[in-house]
């Protein structure tokens, strides 16, 4: 896949960062989100990830989520919204449902 098939939309207010993802979070696009989070998580006490536009997540994507979860556990909380069935299945298989806050 040549094009980066994911778009990231960020809104920040009062220490809350909302990130909406669209497309596929896989090996090709995960570094994009990783960079985004690395630069914008400092001083954030609440991270909300909106997955309503996200179709697919691969292990590379899970790795970024795990890193974000670890960071946010130290400085606040992280929630994930609007998870579709396919991704929910991945979370369940991998045990990520246990460590993520999915609402």
């Amino acid at each position: 896949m040549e094009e980066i098939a994911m778009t990231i939309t960020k809104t920040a207010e009062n220490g809350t960062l909302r990130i909406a993802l669209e497309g596929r979070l896989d090996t090709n696009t995960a570094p994009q989100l990783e960079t985004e989070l690395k630069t914008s998580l400092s001083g954030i006490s609440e991270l909300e990830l909106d997955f309503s536009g996200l179709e697919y997540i691969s292990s590379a994507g899970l790795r970024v989520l795990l890193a974000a979860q670890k960071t946010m556990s130290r400085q606040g909380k992280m929630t994930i919204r609007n998870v579709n069935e396919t991704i929910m299945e991945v979370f369940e298989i991998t045990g990520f449902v246990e460590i993520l806050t999915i609402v």
Partner: protein
Amino acid sequence: MKEKISGLSIKLITSVLLLSVLLCAAISYMGYREFTTVLEDEYNRSAYEIAETAKSYLDPDRLEHYLETGEIDAAYLEIQDRLDALVVSTNSYLIYVTRLSNDYTTSTYIFDAVHPDSGFTRYALGYTAQDMDPAYQDEVEQIMTTGERSAVYFYSYTQASGAHTTAGIPVKDSAGEIVAFLGVEKAMTALENARQTYVWNVMGITVLAVVLFLVVYIGFLRREVVSPILTIAGEARRFAEDNVARLDLLEQIRKKDEIGTLARAIGRMETDIVQYVENLTAVTAEKERIGTELNVATQIQADMLPRIFPPFPERDEFDIYATMTPAREVGGDFYDFFLVDQDHLAVVIADVSGKGVPAALFMVIVKTLIKNHTQTGMAPDQVFETVNRQLCENNEAGMFVTAFLGVLEISTGRFTYVNAGHNPPLAALGGRPYDWLPSKRGFVLAGLEGVRYQQQEIVLCPGDSIFCYTDGVTEALDPADALYSEARLRAFFRGRDLEGRPLAEQLDLLRRDIAAFAAGAEQADDITMLLLRINKTTGRDEHG
């Protein structure tokens, strides 16, 4: 170096030639004009002198008398002779004395001296002609009323008399009355020839000057422009062929003008290109080296997986077969199986997050750790807890791995397994169709410290099969980005008549089914599959 006249020279020479022709024409024309004016002036002045001389021959008081009587006496004849002589000696056409009508249109001749060579015949005394050119009437009136010379030189060209100039003066009697008009017509025979010679001379000199200039100019062009440009062009051509910067030729062009700038620019370009090519070669070599190393890495990784089938030819209690089809680059999937002891077979399948060399390196660690711990006879849940702890110790990169480990007690068919976030295997148990092996989900390995894993246990009977796989199978994409999915995978195992077929053939069929689904779409992830079939159990623990 022999050079032909180049296109550039031709253009420059053509423009110089054009300029020369224009200049030559302008000079000739101006010379012609100036020459004509001066000569005409001279001729006209001469005509007036003749007219004055002729006037001095006349007896103005008698003119009236001659006209009225028409009498030609001795005095008249004498004057006429003198006028005739004057015409010849001054080489004039005509000298005439006329009385003009009041409206200056009609002349009545009193004297008329004609040059013998002119072809004219003399008009007799009293001959009247309406011969005044209307164009001259105003001038003649001016002359006759004021007695002044005309500012306009009468000049005309007739077929008969050629170019000639006319002088006209009034003749006054003793009382000061103007009684007649005296005209002199003088041919300007020298004018034509002299003028032609003059024009030819001017043109000749100009052409000579242009030719001389061109010879010098072409020489200059060759030496200063064409030759250096040809040198630069030749150098550029040579460089394009052998790609070796040679600045000696270019440095000979030590000019401060644009050509010098061009030569220096080409020289710099050659040096830069050579430098660039060297860099590129180095980078390409480096890339090739890395590529080769990656290939070796892929090979090493593949070699780490048991690939000789059947792996345990002497064991007829079970069959096992596994394949890994890597995606584009070295990846993080692996399978493994080994005998813990004579009665225990361990099977592992795992998928490291991400791809490439980091995933491959991590995979090597995980595989080694799992095998080492399992071979000590440790229970699967203990193995995963230990491995997880060890992996978490130094995991700055945040890598993790999903893994499934099962240990089969060959004699009894007891299968103890643990799942760390991996896709649950498909199992065909007790003659029932394939379905997901019930597995308690555990968190991925290397994700969080201190995670507890729960192992489960089933008893496998002869004919039972277990299929382990990675998400490269279920997440294979078709051209419309649809997933192969668990549902399709289970449907494959349920729908096909796989009973009794060799395991290798079953997995090959599955791979074909996935390839058919992908329909040419690129394989995004490693596809790893492991199939285990129980052939028989002894029903007792050989060691127990």
